[in-house]
């Protein structure tokens, strides 16, 4: 019975130490994410995001060259219509 009591005490200690450690470890991981990873993300954003923003810039440049989005849309819809007509004929 005494042995059992000692086991219970050991289990209690293990439970306390274990939960404190798990929370401390994962808590530290939260700090790691919030401090290190978030800053890294700001410093090194994804290449895809950069490509998107650069393509937007290119679009703006093209806009500056005089081709308005309305014209582009009109040409695209005309091309689509033409292709549809071709496929109907076939």
């Amino acid at each position, binding site marked *: 019975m005494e042995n059992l009591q000692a086991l219970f005490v*050991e*289990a*209690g200690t293990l*439970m306390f130490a274990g*939960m404190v450690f798990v929370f401390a*470890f*994962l808590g530290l991981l*939260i700090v790691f994410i919030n401090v290190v990873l978030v800053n890294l993300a700001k410093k*090194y954003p*994804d290449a895809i995001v950069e490509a998107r923003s650069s393509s937007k810039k290119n679009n703006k440049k093209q806009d500056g060259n005089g081709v308005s989005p309305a014209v582009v849309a009109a040409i695209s819809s005309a091309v689509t219509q033409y292709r549809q007509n071709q496929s109907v004929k076939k």
Partner: protein
Amino acid sequence: MESLKVLWLSTGLANFELGQVIMMLVGCGLLYLAIARNFEPLLLVPMGFGAILTNIPVAGFSEVGGLLHFIYYAGIDTGIFPLLIFMGVGAMTDFGALIANPKTLLLGAAAQFGIFATLFGAIALNLVGLDFSMKDASAIAIIGGADGPTAIFLASKLAPELLGAIAVAAYSYMALVPIIQPPIMRALTTVEERKIEMAQLRHVTKVEKIIFPLGVLMMTIFFLPAATPLVGMFCLGNLMRECGVVDRLSSTAQNELINIVTIFLGLGVGSKLSADQFLNAKTLGILALGAVAFSIGTATGVLMAKLMNKLSKEKVNPLIGAAGVSAVPMAARVANKVGLEANPHNFLLMHAMGPNVAGVLGSAVAAGILLALVG
């Protein structure tokens, strides 16, 4: 006449013992659960078949020199198979949801209470005549981590004689997550809480995903080296996935390698399902404690999420706390399903993946603690 007698004595019918027949039926039961009920079939099919093979009289599958003997000692006794599986799991895990909402790590931590509370339960069973040492209790308690490879790894180190029962309990309850968890989740939350819609997660960059496994490994090296076999292999798999330069290795780890190792792991665990090791009161105790561990882990995860919802500025649906027990991705799907029942526009899957993968890390850390303190 003499040769006929020898021939008869070499048949299975002449050598069968009742225990072997019962264990073969247990093996058939596992096959039934896997094939007819789709309960963790990838592991239960080889495990159930391994149970049948190991109980064949005369053939000596699990005796020294037998196939299953070699598989067990080469892969499970050494800890190699569960660690290779863990590498594959790492290669399949996307930490994006966790990095986007890091406070869900606390949910993964809270759900590990199921493990440590079950320690008490296992010791308490000594009051009713069972004889569990602290090592046995720790190996049983890890069932609450809802992580098969972790449970097998720890059991093979702390209580190899209980490995069969622990593995069967761990995988059975992982398959039963959709049945065990929802009643507990509904009992501990109000309809209003279950309806809570959470804010969309931010975009996580590639650099974050690459540095994360390295950071986790560094922290484990500094604070809990006992957990580095598990965490290290997990992080290696995850780094191979995220770094983008070893797609072939990543693909192998999450497909061919994990499939091959799963076959041998199942057979090896099945070889431990022999009558003398399985047909005793301890197995019943382990099965009961496994259910308790899962239930307590689910409850503490949900309660932690409720607390988080009360204290934080951003709303947290308490249902995602239940995913903290790991059991990836089943527990996250269950959280999503129960959420959808309350609010058909509420998709919690991605939010629940955060605590879900946090639970994997949490149970690996808990296993490391048990190894360091008890092993």
